[in-house]
């Protein structure tokens, strides 16, 4: 029995990392219709800049906000210089540009922070917790809480505040939104800044578990992508559930089938999702009018 519990706990831990990433993806996709390949790199910048701030002597509670703000600024700069001018180009051009951005930021990360992995001390220094025979790392509890907190904050932000609904409006129908006096260009800038900040939070949460290197962005970015597709492309709670589901699938397939093919199984699930329900588990099907 404790075996199943351990797989569940591991699945939820890894799943909440993917959920954190997926939230960043959905925020940008929800508002600008772009799947941002550079989202993983925002997490990398967040994690590594936080490590540098800590090394500069800043205490944890100052280093984390500083890293988040720094990444948000980079997200804003990326949007202004690269994304906004080409926003109505073809999907393929946008994909290649975001790949260019991710390669560029990865290169910067390499030059600034070098190649050796850096560790970030976990926020809470506690021993592992025993629960029903499964061992939980306090940091993953912390990640879990962060995901729930973010879920609540973003729900309130998007549904209850004016800016939030303005953001959603400008994605659904930019022309109508601008007629209503919403400045759609600043909306997309806001979306990127917000997503960069979310990416940074994800990076900072993940670093104590997996260490931060200039290359960490790629794989967790990809898994965040998969989580978003499974959960649902246009809503945040769907993406979080998608992330957790992906983590649990990986853990159980690793445990009971073989740890060797758990990644292949996770991507196999993605392919099945794309065939049968491309818009994800939790979103309404949208027909295409002829």
């Amino acid at each position, binding site marked *: 029995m404790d075996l199943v519990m351990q797989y569940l706990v591991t699945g939820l831990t890894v799943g909440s990392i993917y959920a954190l990433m997926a939230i960043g993806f959905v925020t940008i996709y929800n508002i600008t219709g772009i799947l941002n390949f550079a989202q993983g790199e925002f997490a990398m910048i967040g994690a590594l800049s936080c490590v540098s701030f800590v090394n500069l002597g800043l205490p944890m509670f100052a280093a984390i906000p500083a890293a988040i703000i720094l990444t948000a600024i980079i997200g804003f700069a990326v949007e202004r210089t690269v994304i906004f001018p080409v926003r109505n180009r073809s999907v393929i051009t946008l994909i290649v540009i975001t790949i260019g951005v991710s390669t560029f930021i990865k290169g910067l990360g390499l030059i600034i922070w070098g190649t050796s992995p850096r560790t970030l001390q976990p926020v809470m220094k506690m021993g592992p917790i025993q629960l029903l025979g499964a061992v939980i790392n306090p940091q993953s509890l912390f990640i879990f809480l962060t995901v729930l907190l973010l879920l609540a904050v973003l729900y309130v932000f998007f549904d209850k505040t004016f800016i939030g609904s303005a953001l959603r409006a400008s994605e659904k129908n930019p022309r109508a939104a601008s007629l209503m006096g919403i400045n759609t260009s600043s909306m997309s800038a806001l979306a990127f800044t917000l997503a960069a900040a979310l990416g940074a939070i994800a990076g900072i949460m993940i670093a104590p578990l997996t260490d931060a290197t200039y290359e960490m962005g790629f794989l967790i970015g990809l898994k965040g992508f998969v989580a978003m597709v499974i959960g649902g492309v246009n809503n945040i709670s769907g993406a979080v559930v998608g992330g957790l589901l992906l983590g649990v699938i990986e853990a159980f397939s690793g445990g009971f089938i073989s740890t060797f093919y758990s990644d*292949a199984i996770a991507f196999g699930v993605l392919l099945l999702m794309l065939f049968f329900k491309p818009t994800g588990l939790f979103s309404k099907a949208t027909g295409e009018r002829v």
Partner: protein
Amino acid sequence: MAKLDNVLYGHLWRPFASLMVIVLLLPLFVKSSYILTVLILIGIYSLISIGLSLLLGYAGQISLGHAAFFGIGAYVSGVLTAKYAGSPWIAMVIGIVFTWLVSYVIGMAILRLKGHFLALATMAINIIFFILILGLDEFTGGASGLVGIPSLSLFQLNLGNPLYFYFFVWFIVFVIILFSMNIIRSNIGRLLRSIHDSEIATETLGVNVAKYKVIIFSLSAVYASLAGSLYAHFISFIAPPSFYITFSILLLVMVMVGGVHSIWGAVLGTAIIMFLNEWIRYIGQTYFHISGQVEIVVYGLIIILVMMFMPKGLVDILERLWKKIKSVQIKGAEKRKMTTEKGA
């Protein structure tokens, strides 16, 4: 009616011949075997980017997973020749047939998807393939790679010698260019471009759009498999890392930077990105004494700049440049003609 052909699609033979001239003359300029290796790799990678240009530029279907088909070709050739001492040519054909079947089945499944989701699905295929070659290590040698793939030999010509292999690879590139250009310069080419513009309209004109998308997808996969076999015999050693998504992304960048709308763009893009790679590393080493690090940053920057300011790729810029030079010459000629008339 050859005139109709040129009228519709522009000249085929003139660009074809001039590229042929370049390829034949190059070895005279090039002395070091290193540059020859880069040129051979450009030839091999051009095969894949030509296939991607058909799939992406003409039919409008994106793929971030072609490194997998490149890998299938390489591993089928590698395993059959290194482990079971099969003949390289039969292995190459088996690789192509196997890739055609695999890509046809995959194509039928994923080509219903569009844009980002298609990109994601092809990436998933690439990752699953990567994990499989790692996993089936008793065949593929897994993570430590596959050693001892013999070099090719055609009749009695030993293609292990880089110079002969260079001409052999580029001969195949020309055959594939001709085959692809013929496809484009026929109603199939029009059909692909119509799918790119509006799938519904193409369907109502009696075209089984799903079938043609899969055929072009499989054709580009076959090109990649052929390239994979050549690559395996050239490098004589293959390991999983060279068939990962990072290579699929590199291929996409080559096609987009060169100019996605034309086969020549694909070849040009491949050449430029490969030289860029070596150049940046050379400059990075000799002038800044950082090796490898500077390459990624400049790389990303160039992709962004080209995509933002030259959406049609470098081939379009060169073409417009040449038109200006041509028009200047024509004006000059007219002026000269007029002065002579005045003079006479």
